[in-house]
């Protein structure tokens, strides 16, 4: 193996047998001998190969069922590949989630020891690191309290402090960022940067594009057990977004039989969506009845004759609130092309408390031509000052 490679995955496959009816008794197993196979095979990974270099932050993204967690579990040694080899050089953290092995009936002190040895430390090593772990978690005064009496935030803090102090050379992480309160998050991110400076290798599975873009040098996009793209994190994230757009279009009921050629050609792209209040400052939260200005940044890589911008507001539980487009509103979009963004101001938004995001589409003369169609990464929150239920806010009086 070359010296600068931390993980080498060579033509690894994994198939799971999913029984139609689980054979967990002897009788079923005995009867099963005479029956034809009653399981489905699910190819979680199909002969995939990739390398992770030493000191690299490597991201794995993809939709659910794409094989992200399966490959991570195989790197950890939890699953054994059906075929192919995985070579790891360097001490690897054998866990994927925080707080694995913690026992609620034990005190925090005992849990640090138990969790520590489960993560592969010796007792002596845990003893040496104990103070540092406790210090980092900021839980010194609760150290002899049983874990079951901890709040979930405190438990996560303890778990993260322990995990970060295991000091493996290669770290595997499955969506562990964004834990605890803001202060603690900051601390974690600082620690994360330190990892980078120390030249440690991190493999991070996430479907948070932002995290992958921000921290990873390289990334890999998995889809249906195959590597769709591998390379610089930004490129892979972009590919993932395009993929999601295409998937959205295929599933989408608002557009039938879309022509996806244009999306792939990247003739036009939506690059960002921002929210502003009346004073022109960026916001992520407004009150019911406030005005909100939605600014959509886009990029045309080629001149397009007939353009139609569409914008729709969704709540984060996927309820469709309102949608507009520039053709039905008879807007001449030419004026937007120079500044590469357009603003839509919604007046006194009558939405009830929830989180909202927007879907933005760039279409041609009819809705079969789609240049881009995305979900905004940014969301905005609406807070109602009333306590009433329902989706929207209506003025009313008791008579």
């Amino acid at each position, binding site marked *: 193996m070359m010296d600068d490679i931390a993980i080498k995955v060579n033509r690894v496959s994994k198939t*799971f047998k999913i029984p139609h009816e689980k*054979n*967990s*008794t*002897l*009788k079923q*197993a005995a009867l099963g001998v005479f029956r034809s196979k009653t399981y489905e095979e699910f190819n979680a990974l199909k002969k995939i190969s990739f390398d992770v270099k030493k000191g690299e932050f490597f991201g794995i993204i993809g939709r659910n069922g794409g094989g992200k967690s399966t490959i991570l*579990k195989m790197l*950890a*040694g*939890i*699953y*054994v590949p059906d075929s192919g080899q995985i070579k790891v050089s360097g001490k690897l953290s*054998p*866990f*994927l*989630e925080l707080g*694995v*092995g913690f*026992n609620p*009936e*034990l005190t925090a002190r*005992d849990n640090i*020891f*138990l969790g520590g*040895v*489960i*993560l*592969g*430390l*010796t*007792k*002596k090593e845990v003893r040496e690191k104990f103070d540092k772990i406790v210090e980092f978690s900021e839980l010194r005064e609760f150290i002899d309290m049983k874990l079951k009496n901890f709040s979930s935030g405190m438990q996560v803090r303890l778990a993260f402090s322990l995990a970060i102090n295991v000091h493996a050379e290669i770290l595997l992480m499955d969506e562990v960022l964004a834990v605890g309160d803001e202060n603690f998050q900051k601390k974690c991110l600082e620690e994360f940067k330190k990892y980078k400076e120390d030249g440690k290798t991190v493999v991070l599975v996430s479907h948070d594009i932002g995290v992958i873009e921000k921290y990873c040098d390289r990334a890999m996009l998995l889809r249906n057990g195959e590597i769709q793209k591998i390379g610089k994190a930004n490129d892979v994230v972009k590919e993932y977004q395009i993929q999601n757009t295409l998937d959205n279009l295929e599933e989408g009921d608002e557009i039938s039989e879309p022509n996806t050629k244009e999306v792939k050609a990247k003739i036009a792209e939506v690059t960002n969506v921002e929210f502003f209040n009346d004073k022109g400052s960026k916001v992520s939260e407004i009150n019911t009845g406030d005005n909100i200005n939605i600014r959509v940044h886009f990029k045309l890589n080629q001149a397009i004759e007939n353009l139609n911008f569409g914008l729709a507001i969704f709540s984060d539980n996927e309820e469709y609130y309102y949608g507009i487009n520039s053709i039905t509103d008879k807007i001449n979009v030419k004026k937007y092309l120079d500044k590469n963004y357009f603003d839509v101001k919604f007046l006194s938004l009558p939405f009830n408390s929830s989180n909202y995001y927007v879907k933005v589409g760039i279409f041609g003369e009819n809705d079969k031509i789609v240049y881009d169609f995305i979900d905004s990464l940014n969301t905005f929150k609406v807070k109602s000052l009333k306590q009433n239920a329902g989706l929207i806010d209506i003025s009313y009086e008791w008579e």
Partner: protein
Amino acid sequence: MKRYLSLISELAITGFKLKYNGSFFGYLWSLANPLMYFLVLYFVFTRVFDLGDSIKNYPLYLLLGVTIWGFFAEATSVCMNSIVSNGDLIRKVYFPRIVLPIASSLSTFINLMLNLVVVFAFALVLHVDLTTKIMFIPLYLIEIYFFTLGVSLFLAALFVKFRDIGPIWGVAMQVLFYATPIIYPITLVPDRYLKLMMVSPLAQIIQGFRYSLMSNDIGTSSGTLGIFAFLPVFITLAVFLLGYFSFQKMAAKFAENV
């Protein structure tokens, strides 16, 4: 290797600590259990049926049998569950899976050692003449541990896929209890069954313990089996190897099946 030893000892101590966690008398219960069982059996077999006269120091004889049996019964049942009940851990962390049943069996073994202290105290109270034969006891302890571990490994691995093993083992334990000289002296066993019975490592070990601690007239395997006296030890070794290798073979798939 060293880290796995740390892991085993930490898990074993935790298991021991947690067993009576929250109960007022704590560890005392693990003494009380075999003692209560012993008292019940003692009452039945000296007052109702009279076995007591046929053997010198019958109470000690019975207590020793119940203690060793108790270890075997508890260890196999705890170990059988050790993989399944730690499913969450197995799906999320890698460590050699064999660590779990070893840790479970060790925490039960700690219990056995403490119980044996009580047995010794009892022997002293009864003024049993202790001889140099007690030097054999560590050998029997090693044998019972590895025999139990072998059985446990096999059960634990099978239990992941076939949950029927649970009740099946429950029935098997009842048969074994009466097929092993725990309550009765082996002089009561008809000759045609005696040899078969003494081939069992459990019978050999329990009789061996009694021989080492009590008196020479306890029938041992070597006395009963003659030149075949090696058989129980041979079986112990075979059971351990079978358990170990079948466990290791199935262990790779635990994370998927559990």
